[in-house]
C-alpha cells in the first residue's frame, strides 16, 4: 500500500490532540487570523501509522551498514538518548537564571575539557550548530585574528586543496575570501612545496582536511603548518575525519589553528536524516582570544556562561553565531558517548575504524581499482571506476545495484580528484560479520559488472521502495509543496 500525503487523508476538523481552551477575551490588536490555514488534521492512530509507514521506506544505521566515506555514520547508543531526555537537560530554558542550571553548565564545561584534552588545543566554541557552521566559526576566528593584527585588508586568499569538501570553498567565499586551489600530488596528499609555491602575504589561511578525503593522513601536515605560520597565515582543519585519530593523534600537535568537530559523526549523536548536528570548534592559542560568545568560563562559584564581551575581560570575542548556547541536546549525547567509551574506548574505536577500512581494502584490492595504488589508508578507503572501464557500468550504477543487495551505497563521485570515486568508510561500529557481508556483495557486483550483466546495474534499484527517481525533472519544474487539487489544476 502506498502511503498518501497527510494532505490527501487529513481533514481540518479532525485532530489528534485534545486542547482545553480557557474562556476569556482576546487582545490580538485586530490581527486575528481570518483566513483558513489549510492544515490537515489526523487522529492519533492515523498519525502514528502514517509516520511508522513512512519510516519503513528509510534505510538507517539500525538496519544496516552505511559505508559512506567522509560521513562517519556510526552506531547511536540509546543510553545517550535517555540521558538527553532527562528533564534536567531537556526541559530547561536557555534564559532561565544561570544559578538554576549549574548542572547544564557543568556538562558544557566537562565536554569542553574532554574536547580540549583530546585535541590538545587552547579554547573551544561550543555554539556552532553543525559542521559547516563550525567551519564558518573557525574561519571567522582566523579572520578576526587578522583584523586584530591589522592585516585583514591584505590577506584575501584562502588555499583549499581540490580534494576538499564543498563546504570549505563555500565557507571561505561566504567570508569574502578568494579561494585558491592547490592540487594534490600523485599519492593523494598535499605537498609542502605546492603550498610554499602559492602561500604569501596575501594568504589568510589554508583549509585542509586530515585525514584527507582520500582517506589518507597528510604526512607533511606539520611542515605545511609551519609554512603557513611563517607566512603569517593560519591552518584551518576540517575535522570531519577525526574519527580516524581520536585519542591517537592530537590536532594541537600538528600545528592546527582551528578545527571543527562533528559531534554527530565522531561522537555519535544521531544523524537524524540530515540533522540536527553540532560542530564545536577548537582553537589554538593564537586564535583563542577571538573565540565567539557564549563561552563557558571559570567563575567564582564554578563555571559560568559568558554571554557578553564584558564577561570575558581582556579577550576579543568576535560575536555570536546563533541565539542561545548551542546544541545542548547534542552536548549531552556526545558527553554520554565519550564517558561510555573513555580514553581507552575512543582509542580502540579509532584503531578499529582504521582496521575496518583497511580490511575492506585488503579484501577488495584484487578487484577494485585504487587511484593512488594499494597503500594503507586511515578510516576510509578510496576506489575509482578504472576497473569498470568498458563494462557500461558506472559508479552510480554500482551504487544503485548495492541497494538491491540490501546495502546503502558508498559515497560516490567524491572526492572529485578520483575518477568515478567510491569512498568507503565502515566505522568501528561494524562487526567482521557485517564487513564480510558487505565485501561479498561488492565482490559479487564487481564480478557481475565484469561479466557483462549490465542490466542488473542500469535497472537498479529494483528492490527499493522506489526505482531510480527523476532528479532532472524535479529540478527543472520544482514541485516543492502540495497544492489543493483545484489550485494545482489552475497553476498548470
Amino acid at each position, binding site marked *: 500500500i502506498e502511503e498518501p500525503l497527510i494532505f490527501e487523508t487529513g481533514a481540518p476538523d479532525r485532530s489528534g490532540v485534545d486542547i482545553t481552551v480557557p474562556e476569556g477575551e482576546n487582545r490580538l490588536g485586530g490581527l486575528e487570523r481570518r483566513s483558513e490555514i489549510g492544515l490537515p488534521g489526523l487522529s492519533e492512530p492515523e498519525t502514528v501509522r502514517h509516520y511508522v509507514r513512512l519510516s519503513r521506506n528509510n534505510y538507517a544505521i539500525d538496519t544496516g551498514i552505511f559505508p559512506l566515506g567522509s560521513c562517519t555514520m556510526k552506531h547511536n547508543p540509546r543510553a545517550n538518548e535517555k540521558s538527553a531526555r532527562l528533564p534536567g537537560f531537556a526541559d530547561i530554558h536557555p534564559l532561565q537564571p544561570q544559578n538554576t542550571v549549574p548542572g547544564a553548565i557543568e556538562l558544557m564545561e566537562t565536554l569542553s575539557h574532554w574536547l580540549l584534552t583530546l585535541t590538545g588545543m587552547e579554547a573551544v566554541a561550543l555554539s556552532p550548530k553543525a559542521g559547516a557552521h563550525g567551519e564558518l566559526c573557525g574561519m571567522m576566528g582566523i579572520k578576526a585574528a587578522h583584523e586584530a593584527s591589522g592585516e585583514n585588508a591584505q590577506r584575501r586568499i584562502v588555499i583549499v586543496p581540490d580534494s576538499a569538501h564543498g563546504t570549505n570553498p563555500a565557507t571561505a567565499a561566504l567570508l569574502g575570501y578568494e579561494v585558491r586551489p592547490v592540487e594534490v600530488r600523485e599519492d593523494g596528499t598535499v605537498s609542502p612545496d605546492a603550498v610554499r609555491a602559492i602561500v604569501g602575504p596575501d594568504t589568510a589561511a589554508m583549509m585542509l582536511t586530515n585525514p584527507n578525503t582520500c582517506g589518507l593522513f597528510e604526512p607533511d601536515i606539520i611542515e605545511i603548518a609551519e609554512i603557513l605560520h611563517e607566512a603569517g597565515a593560519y591552518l584551518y582543519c576540517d575535522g570531519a575525519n577525526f574519527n580516524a585519530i581520536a585519542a591517537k593523534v592530537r590536532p594541537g600537535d600538528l600545528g592546527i589553528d582551528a578545527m571543527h568537530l562533528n559531534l554527530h559523526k565522531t561522537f555519535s549523536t544521531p544523524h537524524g536524516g540530515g540533522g540536527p548536528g553540532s560542530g564545536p570548534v577548537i582553537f589554538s592559542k593564537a586564535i583563542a582570544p577571538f573565540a565567539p560568545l557564549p563561552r563557558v568560563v571559570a567563575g567564582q562559584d564554578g563555571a559560568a556562561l559568558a554571554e557578553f564581551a564584558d564577561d570575558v575581560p581582556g579577550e576579543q570575542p568576535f560575536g555570536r553565531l546563533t541565539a542561545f548556547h548551542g546544541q545542548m541536546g547534542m552536548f549531552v549525547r556526545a558527553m554520554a558517548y565519550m564517558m561510555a567509551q573513555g580514553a581507552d574506548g575512543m582509542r580502540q574505536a579509532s584503531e578499529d575504524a582504521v582496521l575496518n577500512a583497511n580490511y575492506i581494502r585488503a579484501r577488495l584490492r584484487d578487484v577494485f581499482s585504487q587511484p593512488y595504488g594499494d597503500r594503507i589508508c586511515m578510516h576510509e578507503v578510496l576506489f575509482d571506476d578504472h576497473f569498470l572501464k568498458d563494462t557500461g557500468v558506472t559508479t552510480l550504477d554500482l551504487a544503485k545495484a548495492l541497494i538491491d543487495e540490501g546495502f546503502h551505497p558508498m559515497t560516490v563521485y567524491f572526492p572529485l580528484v578520483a575518477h568515478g570515486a567510491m569512498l568507503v568508510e565502515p566505522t568501528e561500529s561494524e562487526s567482521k560479520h557485517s564487513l564480510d557481508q558487505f565485501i561479498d556483495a561488492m565482490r559479487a557486483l564487481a564480478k557481475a559488472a565484469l561479466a557483462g550483466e549490465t542490466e542488473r546495474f542500469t535497472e537498479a534499484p529494483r528492490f527499493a521502495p522506489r*526505482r531510480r527517481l527523476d532528479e532532472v525533472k524535479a529540478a527543472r519544474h520544482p514541485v516543492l509543496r502540495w497544492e489543493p487539487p483545484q489550485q494545482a489544476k489552475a497553476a498548470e
Partner: protein
Amino acid sequence: MRLLPHTDADRAAMLAAIGVREIDDLFADVPEAARLKELPDLPRHASEIELERAMQRMADKNVAASSVPFFVGCGAYNHHVPATVDHLIQRSEFMTAYTPYQPEVAQGTLQYLFEFQTQVAMLTGMDVANASMYDGSTAASEAVLMAQRVTKRPKAVISTGLHPHYRAVIETFGHFSEHESVAVEDDEIAEALDDKTACVIVQTPDVFGRVHDLRKLADKVHEAGALLIVAVTEVLSLGALTPPGEMGADIVVAEGQSIGNGLNFGGPYLGLFATRQKYVRQMPGRLAGETTDEDGKRGFVLTLATREQHIRRDRATSNICTNSGLCALAFTIHLTLMGESGLRDLALANHRTAVALADDLAQVSGVKVLTDQFFNEFTIQVPGDGAQVIDKLADKGVLGGVPAARLWPDRPDLADRIIVAATETTTPEDRAAYVAALKEVLA
C-alpha cells in the same frame, strides 16, 4: 567494550588479512612525533550504570521548567509535546538515517520533508519553504544574506524589536561577509531606507511581545526596492495571528521549537524559512521536491542542489549542508496531530492564558503591564531592578520571565523590564504562585 564489536580474535584475523603485524602499522603515515604514546588524560570507559549516575547527578542540579511555575520565553517556549511525537522521532529509521542523498532508500525522510515544507508555507502564508535550518536566528541571518543576493544591495535595516540574539547573529555574519547592518526603532525604519538597502527585518510578535500590523511597512519597503523579512520567534502565534505572508513579507523566518520540540537549553532548535515562489532559486538550505521514478510512481528527492555547496562549492548560496531534520520531523508530526482545529485551539489557549496572567500581574502593586496587544508574551515594568526581581523569584521557586538586562546589559533604560510568557502548560495555580511570590519580592 560494549560499543565495539570486534573480539581480539577478529582483530588478529583482520590484521592478517591486511598483511600487517600490528595496528600501528596502519598509522605509519602519522609523523612519529605526533603519535600519542599514552592515552589522553581522561577517564577510562564506564558502565552504563556509572554513566547514568553521572548524567543524573548533573541533570538533578538544574531546575526543570515542568517542575516549577514557569514564565520564561523570549525565543524559546515551554509547551507540551505529545508522547506520540517523541516516540515516532525515535524510530530507528528516522533517527539513525543519513541525509537523503540516495532517494530510493530515503523516501520516508523525503516525504515528511515535503509535507513539512507545505505545512510551513501554509502557516506563514508564503509560497514555498525549505526543509529547515539550524534555528530561527541563523535562518534570519541567511534571510539577510539572501536578500543581499536578490537585491545586490549591501545594507540590512534591523528593527530593534528583533530578538537581540538574532540581531547579533546577523551583525556577526554581516561583519565577516562584509555587508552593512543598521538597527533602528520601528518608527524610524522608513527614514533608514535608501538605495543601498537590501532588506528590512522585523519581528512579530516582537521580542517584547507586541504584535504588529506590517502592511504599511511592507509597502514602504517594497517602494524602496528592498525585501521585507519577518521573523517569528513564537511559531505558535501563527495559529492565531494574521500570517506575515498576508501582510506583504518577502521572506519569513521563524523559530519552530514551540511545535514538537523541547526547550533543550537552547538547542537543537528548528529554523523555518519561507519565501515567494520567484525567489526559490536564491533560497538557502535543503529542499525536497516531488518527481517520479522509472515506473512513473510519485516519489521525492532533494532538489535544486545546484545552489548548494557540495555541487557549487565557492559559488553556493550558503555553506549549509545540514538541516534540522529530526526537529523538523517532530514539528511536522505535532502539527499533523493538531491539524487546523488543534493548532487554532492551542494558540487560543496560549493567548487566553497570557491575557489572564497579564491581568493578574497588573493587580500587583507597583507592577505595570506595558504591552496592550500580544500573543502569549508581554513586558512588565517593576519597581527596581528586573534582574534582581527574577533572581529573588527564582529563590522562591518561580521562574518569572526574562529580565531585559539578560538580553541588553547595556540598556539601563530597560533595567526595570521583565518579559513574561505564558503557555498552555501554565495553570491557574501557576499564575497564583507568581502573583504571590511577586508580591513578597516587591514588598
